[in-house]
């Protein structure tokens, strides 16, 4: 077994020249793809349908066997290990959820621990912990069956089930795609909060660029034929799209959307300061986004913001100066 061709111990998932060809199709579903995903990173694969993003995801736990190339997880070449054992160590969540309808919620969540031979009492206790973690009261839901739950609740169970054996890696294939928009946004935010606590390495597939921008630490934008058009942070993608494909895919309003990713801390150093007391301001702190600050300025009918600095001082920035600073892409992303 050869060494992983990258020295970084920070790398959790490494795809090395991975391809997938199906015998009855002239074009490869994925060809020569290489990607490096860091430990604890939330990576979103996004792109039009047929771009190979789901195939890529499914090659990581070998639901689809790669035709070429190698895949490394946590420094181990998993291309030839026992697939079932590999999958038990990787969380897996799909859009259709796929809870086993004849098992209770608790039994569904305890499925992987059961496959791993965890004793019954221990795995049911674990199931209750996880239901609690995803916001489902165990005493209410543990004994119910999947069909008695709403779509959003079922997907929480799906997430809990994927986390049951505490896998370092989670693969999620459009997990929030089937729930209604309001529940989806709620699930997304909850999941982000959950991720802050559990710090899993997540590979997440979606076709929704807004979802990608909201969730990902980094976003991999796939073009036709699994070409990796850009693999970067949301801010960088909005600020410096790699090519016309990325620009088109991100769509209109990129410069406005950037504002909700840009924090005041990012722009404070390049904004021109105005003298205090010149105009009516709203008070904001450095951690707030430019978008939020603008919203507050507009709703208060103010003329600028007053930023509290960690030193205890405050800086006054007029609306005009703030917008000018936020519009300077090359200087805010370092």
């Amino acid at each position, binding site marked *: 077994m050869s060494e992983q061709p990258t020295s970084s111990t920070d790398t959790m998932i490494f795809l090395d020249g991975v391809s997938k060809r199906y015998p009855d199709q002239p074009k490869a579903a994925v060809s020569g793809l290489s990607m490096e995903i860091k430990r604890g990173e939330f990576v979103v694969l996004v792109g039009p349908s047929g771009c190979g993003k789901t195939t890529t995801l499914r090659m990581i736990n070998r639901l689809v066997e790669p035709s070429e190339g190698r895949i490394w997880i946590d420094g181990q070449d998993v291309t030839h290990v026992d697939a079932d054992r590999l999958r038990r160590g990787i969380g897996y969540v*799909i859009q259709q959820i*796929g809870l086993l309808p004849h098992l209770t919620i608790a039994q569904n969540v305890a499925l992987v621990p059961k496959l791993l031979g965890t004793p019954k009492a221990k795995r049911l206790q674990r199931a209750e912990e996880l239901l609690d973690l995803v916001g489902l009261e165990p005493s209410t839901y543990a004994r119910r069956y999947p069909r*008695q739950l709403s779509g959003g609740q079922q997907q929480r169970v799906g997430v809990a089930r994927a986390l049951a054996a505490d896998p370092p890696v989670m693969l999620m294939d459009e997990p929030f795609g089937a729930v209604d928009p309001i529940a989806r946004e709620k699930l997304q935010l909850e999941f982000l909060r959950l991720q802050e606590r559990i710090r899993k390495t997540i590979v997440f597939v979606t076709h929704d660029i807004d979802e990608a921008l909201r969730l990902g630490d980094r976003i991999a934008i796939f073009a036709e034929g699994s070409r990796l058009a850009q693999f970067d942070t949301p801010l960088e993608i909005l600020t410096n799209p790699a090519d016309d494909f990325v620009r088109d895919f991100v769509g209109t309003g990129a410069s406005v959307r950037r504002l909700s990713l840009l924090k005041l801390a990012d722009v404070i150093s390049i904004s021109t300061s105005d003298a205090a007391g010149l105009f009516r301001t709203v008070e904001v702190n450095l951690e707030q986004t430019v978008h939020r600050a603008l919203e507050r300025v507009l709703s208060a009918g103010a003329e600028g913001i007053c930023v509290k600095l960690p030193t205890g001082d405050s800086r006054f920035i007029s609306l005009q100066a703030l917008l000018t600073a936020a519009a300077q892409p090359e200087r805010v992303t370092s």
Partner: protein
Amino acid sequence: MLLSYITDNAARLLFLAEQHVELVLISVAISAVIGIGLALITESMPRLRHGLLSLTGTFLTIPSFALFALMIPVLGLGVAPTIAALAVYGVFPILRNTVTGLEGVDPAVVDAARGLGMGRNQRMGSVVLPLAWPVILNGIRTATIMLVATAAIGAVVRGPGLGELIFEGLARIGGANALNETLSGVIGVVLVALVLDLLFIVIAKVTTLRGIHV
């Protein structure tokens, strides 16, 4: 009178009914093993599977009288040819329902089970078969009811069961109690069918896992 005929011959009628039930259950068991087995073996061979469905479906079009008679040169007279012929008839409904049941299992559930690390046999044993079971059981039930009626014809090859009454009675129709004998055979067959049908309702209740119908 029919009623007095039945009470006078209660012991024989009960014996024949019992034989009839046994005959049907043994034949259905063989059909089930063959039908479910064929469906499982052909899991990844859809062409063969549909070929088998057509073939076993064709068996049903052979008149039962003829099929029983055709068994004589191979298996002689008595229990063996009767069971063989009945088992042939029973395969189709069980195979068809098993195929329908397996194909009806939500692919997302199977994909999730696979993605979580369940092996092929685990998926089949604890996901696919339990979910397909209500449909498979219905096939077995259909086959059973069908065979209760067909088994009566088994009397042409000296098979056991209530068919004996019907054929004996018909052979000497006009004679003393001939009609009563035939009728009691017919009524017996209907009652056996009803009892077995009830039995299947109970089995379905007991064996269908909770959660499927909630």
